[in-house]
């Protein structure tokens, strides 16, 4: 059995838009476990707490009840422990690519090995752009820069929040294959929010389905595919069946 790197132990959380509005319960005594080196996708309709889950893990929010254990430790100050890659690339327009990528190292006060960063940029298909500015890069390139910045936080757990949702379909396919390569190379644990079922099936070992409000139990689906995978694997009969089941499950909830 592999080591557990992330654990929710009976976590509850509610959200209050304004002081006068009624609190909305998002999580109600939720349990979850993520193992070392796993690729887990989180899927569910909008407003069902996918992003809240990430805000809790990163430490931007703290739970009302229960415990969150990151690498076996429970603490109220989890900031700086996991790598978070937001939906928009959020690169600083006034910094060059190199300066953007090294931001987490700067914040940790670590020595910035420029040669190593330039090497990594080249591995990411970003050779020669280290001194240009984000505005000069395409959307796909900016997402790769943003991903490298997340990797350089040095955390073993990476949270990716719909990183490819703003990309066109073709770029998206390339980026998905690329992400799997990088994940295997860097040996990280990845949690990946998406609302695209194909994307979740293609990328993940397990899929967490958030399909109730508030979430009480997270439904888990183990993807029955070996690696390496290709898009063609998704056309297998059992995969199509799994996809149908997921869609009907999500739809019954979304139509309410």
């Amino acid at each position, binding site marked *: 059995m592999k080591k557990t790197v992330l654990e929710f132990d009976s976590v509850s959380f509610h959200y209050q838009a304004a002081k006068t509005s009624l609190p909305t319960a998002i999580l109600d005594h939720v349990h979850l476990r993520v193992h070392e080196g796993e690729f887990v996708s989180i899927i569910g309709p909008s407003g069902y707490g996918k992003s809240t889950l990430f805000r809790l893990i990163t*430490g931007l929010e703290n739970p009302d009840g229960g415990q969150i254990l990151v690498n076996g430790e429970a603490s109220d100050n989890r*900031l*700086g422990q*996991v790598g978070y890659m*937001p939906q928009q690339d*959020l690169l600083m327009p006034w*910094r060059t690519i190199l300066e953007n990528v090294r*931001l987490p190292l700067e*914040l940790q006060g670590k020595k910035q090995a420029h040669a190593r960063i330039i090497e990594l940029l080249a591995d990411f298909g970003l050779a020669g752009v280290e001194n240009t*500015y984000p505005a000069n890069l395409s959307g796909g390139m900016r997402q790769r820069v943003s991903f490298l910045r997340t990797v350089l936080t040095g955390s073993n757990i990476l949270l990716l929040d719909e990183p490819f949702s703003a990309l066109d379909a073709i770029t998206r396919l390339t980026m998905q294959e690329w992400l799997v390569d990088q994940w295997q190379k860097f040996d990280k644990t990845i949690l990946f929010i998406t609302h695209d079922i194909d994307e979740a099936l293609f990328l993940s070992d397990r899929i967490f389905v958030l399909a109730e409000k508030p979430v009480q139990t997270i439904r888990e689906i183990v993807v029955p595919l070996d690696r390496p995978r290709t898009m063609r694997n998704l056309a297998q009969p059992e995969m199509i069946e799994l996809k149908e089941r997921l869609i009907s499950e999500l739809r019954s909830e979304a139509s309410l």
Partner: protein
Amino acid sequence: MKKLLSYTWSIAFITVLLVSWEIGARLYDKSFLFPSPSAILVKLWELKAELFIHHLPPTALTILIGLTISIVIGSALAVSMYMKKPIEQAFYPILIASQTIPIIALAPIFVLWLGYSIWSKVAVTVLITFFPITVSVFDGLRSSDRNLRELMLTMGASTKDIFFKLDIPSALPSFFSGLKVAVTLSVIGAAIGEWLGAQAGLGYFSRRMMTQFDSAAVFAPIVLLSAVGIICFLFVVWLEKIFLHWRKHQ
């Protein structure tokens, strides 16, 4: 070359304006009331020693000191308003309200308090340039991206990190816009200050010549004053290009 072409129309317009002024002034032929541009230039040349050596330095010094004080105190106030909500609530309304005070009408009181020294002129300059700088720095700080702030927090950033690596770079474009307004206003501030009473200065000299019905000599220091304003403005534009060079990539 292309850049020069974009100025074609404004150069043409100014030429037409100057030529008609010259013709008009010559036809009217009362140079003590309505001097021609060429007469002003001649006057400027005749008075060059007095203007440049005697009157330009005190005015330039007033502008320099006034702007420096405004930048230092204005930015400090903007940062404290941004950092502490109570300070914002205390000062922001006052800051806005202070703009409804007719500053020119207030200027004599500074002479009363600070005498005919340079400080009464500096006070007027500060009063007139303080507002654009404070407001532009404050708005610039507030424009920093909340999502980026949260991302930096997840990377373990401290408040100091966020201030220096996010807030200040975010505020710079707005600060430079405010500074451009402030440098042009500072010339006006210094000139007004000098009207009220001074021993030297371009504003003072211009006003003194008015009492002598020498209108060409009234205009000559004004030409010089606007030249100072334009040079200061271009200097800020140059600084902006250096600090915000990333913007040309957008």
